[in-house]
């Protein structure tokens, strides 16, 4: 614990020193929002560093351009140092920070174990319900596998808890940044829009940025769009499914051209493409830009999203096959549930922190 705090302080001090150097160099203004935001400060408190780090996409552009990048003794490495800081902010402001800390340390391992545990639990529930029925046909009906009440019950409880803790984390972070600024609705929309359009991931004049190796392209932005909007589609599909079932009393399976199905199918495909692409890019990434602190978390997140989308798609294709379906339903639901549970502590939260930082940036630029 002691050692950890020590270590955190060192990370902050290192980032602070880099910011001080950048601030008197300023060659990189124009790359992204980070540099103008730095320049409006004279010295850097930890909360400023938190803010700046969450504006950074770790694209590498300023690393390759930096005359003080290692091996220079000044050791300016914004993408990697800010990556470390972001990992710290995710756990620092999360609701239930202890759990966050544990999870962040063991990102990949913890989320895999969590998923397996849930899966085993679901299997037990399933056998508990089905032990005396030798072999029935489910006709593609999920609720035959896991009772409606169990499914809705578990997911609404978890959903509410998760939403709550994400909201708390977001508010913690945002209020630590905002200081005296008055919230202005235009800036809020600006920030959200910049986040959703990945404005700064496009680099200077949308020419792309230097991730994952020192050549410029927009691939990462496209994959990110696939992943994010794919996720959103899946989310919409799930909500629509619930709506159809509950209010329209039409239960699954739905026709291919129905809204839930279309959203689900395309969402799943997009999410698969996006996560796979981001994964490959991350593997290829210049190791000097990497942040060891956030690495495990990043992979865990990409991996669990991929598993969720892939199992979802398989389920859709194989729902007529009873044996596969049982297994897939349980697996998919465990994956989704595990993803939900780690959301407030994992990489998922980065989107919210980015929005908070961009809103703050919009407020700041408006003020000046």
């Amino acid at each position: 614990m002691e050692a950890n705090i020590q270590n955190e302080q060192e990370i902050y001090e290192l980032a602070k020193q880099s910011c001080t150097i950048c601030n008197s160099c300023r060659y990189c203004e124009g790359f992204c929002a980070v540099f103008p935001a730095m320049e409006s400060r004279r010295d850097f408190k930890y909360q400023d560093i938190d803010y700046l780090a969450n504006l950074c996409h770790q694209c590498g552009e300023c690393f390759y351009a930096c005359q003080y990048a290692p091996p220079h003794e000044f050791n300016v490495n914004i993408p990697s140092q800010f990556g470390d800081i972001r990992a710290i902010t995710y756990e620092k402001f999360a609701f239930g920070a202890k759990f966050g800390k544990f999870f962040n340390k063991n990102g990949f391992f913890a989320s895999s174990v969590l998923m397996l545990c849930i899966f085993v639990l679901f299997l037990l529930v399933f056998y508990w319900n089905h032990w005396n029925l030798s072999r029935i046909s489910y006709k593609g009906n999920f609720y035959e596998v896991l009772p409606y009440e169990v499914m809705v019950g578990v997911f609404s409880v978890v959903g509410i808890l998760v939403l709550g803790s994400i909201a708390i984390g977001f508010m913690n972070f945002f209020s630590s940044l905002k200081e005296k600024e008055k919230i202005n609705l235009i800036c809020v929309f600006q920030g959200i829009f910049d986040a959703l359009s990945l404005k700064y991931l496009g680099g200077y004049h949308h020419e792309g940025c230097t991730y994952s190796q020192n050549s410029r392209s927009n691939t990462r932005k496209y994959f990110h769009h696939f992943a994010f909007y794919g996720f959103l589609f899946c989310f919409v599909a799930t909500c629509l499914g619930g709506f159809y079932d509950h209010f329209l009393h039409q239960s699954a399976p739905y026709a291919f051209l129905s809204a839930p199905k279309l959203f689900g199918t395309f969402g799943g495909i997009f999410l698969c493409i996006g996560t796979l692409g981001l994964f490959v890019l991350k593997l290829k990434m210049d190791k000097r830009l990497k942040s060891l602190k956030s690495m495990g978390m990043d992979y865990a997140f990409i991996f669990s999203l991929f598993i969720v989308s892939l199992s979802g798609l398989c389920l859709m294709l194989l729902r007529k096959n009873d044996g596969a379906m049982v297994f897939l339903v349980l697996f998919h639901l465990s994956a989704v549930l595990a993803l939900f549970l780690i959301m407030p502590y994992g990489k998922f939260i980065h989107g919210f922190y980015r929005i908070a930082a961009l809103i703050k940036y919009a407020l700041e630029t408006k003020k000046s």
Partner: protein
Amino acid sequence: MEDFSCDVLIIGGGNAALCAALCARENHQNVIVLETSPKDWRGGNSQHTRNLRSMHIQPTDVLSDSYSEDEFWEDVWRVSGGETNEEYARFVISQTPQIIQWAKSHGVRFQPSLGGTLQLGRTNAFFLGGGKALLNAYYKRAEQLGIKIFYEHEAIDLHIQEDECKYILVKDKIVNKVSQWRAKTYIVASGGFESNLDWLKEAWGQKADNFLIRGTKYNQGLMLKALIKEGAKILGSPTQGHMVAIDARAPKYDGGIVSRVDCVSLGIVVNKNAKRFYDEGEDFWPKRYAIWGRLVANQPEEIAYSITDSKVLDKYMPSLFPPIIAESISDLAKKLKLDEIILKQTLNDYNQKVVAGNFNHTILDDCKTKGLEIEKTHWAQKIDTPPFYCYPLRPGITFTYLGVGVTKQAEVIKQNGEVCKNLFAAGEIMAGNILSKGYVAGFGMSIGSVFGRIAGISAANFNTKRGW
């Protein structure tokens, strides 16, 4: 047929070298670039630059207003005190607009002209990401075009016979082996000798021990030495160079832009004896920072201390090192190891002689002292509001002017007036043809780019004429 390693052999890996390499390659030459540094440190002083100066008759996407050839020339003339070559200077100036276009077409990106903090936006075009980003773009293009780049290969000597260069000696630093490299033409673009501490000491004496080198450690001036030895025409004196006052705590090499100190004109500067020695408010700092390098170099132990108080803290750019802070003058004297009584005396004298005025740091205001041996003529305010802030200053060498004479085709001229037909020079190593004193910001990259391109094209033309 003779056995050449390539058509054009380029010595150096900075801006001038890469401009030459790209132009030669685009004129169908086989090109080799020798860079003495490892890849991570490539690009010499050019990697520390941030802009180049360019004339333009109307606003462009990267330059505001207009800046005529005449105005540019007058600026050059003024800073050099007339010690410049009008023909060559105008020759470079008139080609600067093409340079920006050419750089852009080779992947260099510039900041838009209306950037917030860039007051020089009228005369200078700023590289997006600075000089290292510019070099990255050129290197990338060079690799795409099939130019061979040898890192950690140092040219240590060259041999001129009659009017031709016959070979150069190259040390492969990885395996520590020296060999002869022969090419049809050679372009020397290896910078000045500013990184060579022994040579600096030869020129400046013991003082040089306390100089800091703002740029690369790789510009050792070996090619300059070889050219002197082989009878090339040498211009300028080894003590001429661009020297500024920088933070004394900066590293010996590669401190670059962040080691600058911007608060000199806002306070007073004392030397090791705790005495003032020059008018800190003579003119705007950007116009004066280049004389302060020499001023500090001529003080005892080559050190000085810029002292301000809390009134002006927000009037200058923050810099890399935090100021030394003290609550009282005695405390400050202790921290700086200066004589307490004399420092107090100096400050007292100064404070008493400040005449009230309207302080305005953006104009040459009427705040000054009256009755001091060394007056401060602008921005003089009492230094009386603790805490007090101090930045220690040392001379920081940007580059040296000593160079080799060239024709307008970039051919190296010999002492006897003959022209070497297959040997060309570009960049810092020939900047002495244009400047021997004083410097306008951004001119170095202009000269290097213009002459770099010319050298590349001249080398190609020479080879074509020979039928090679």
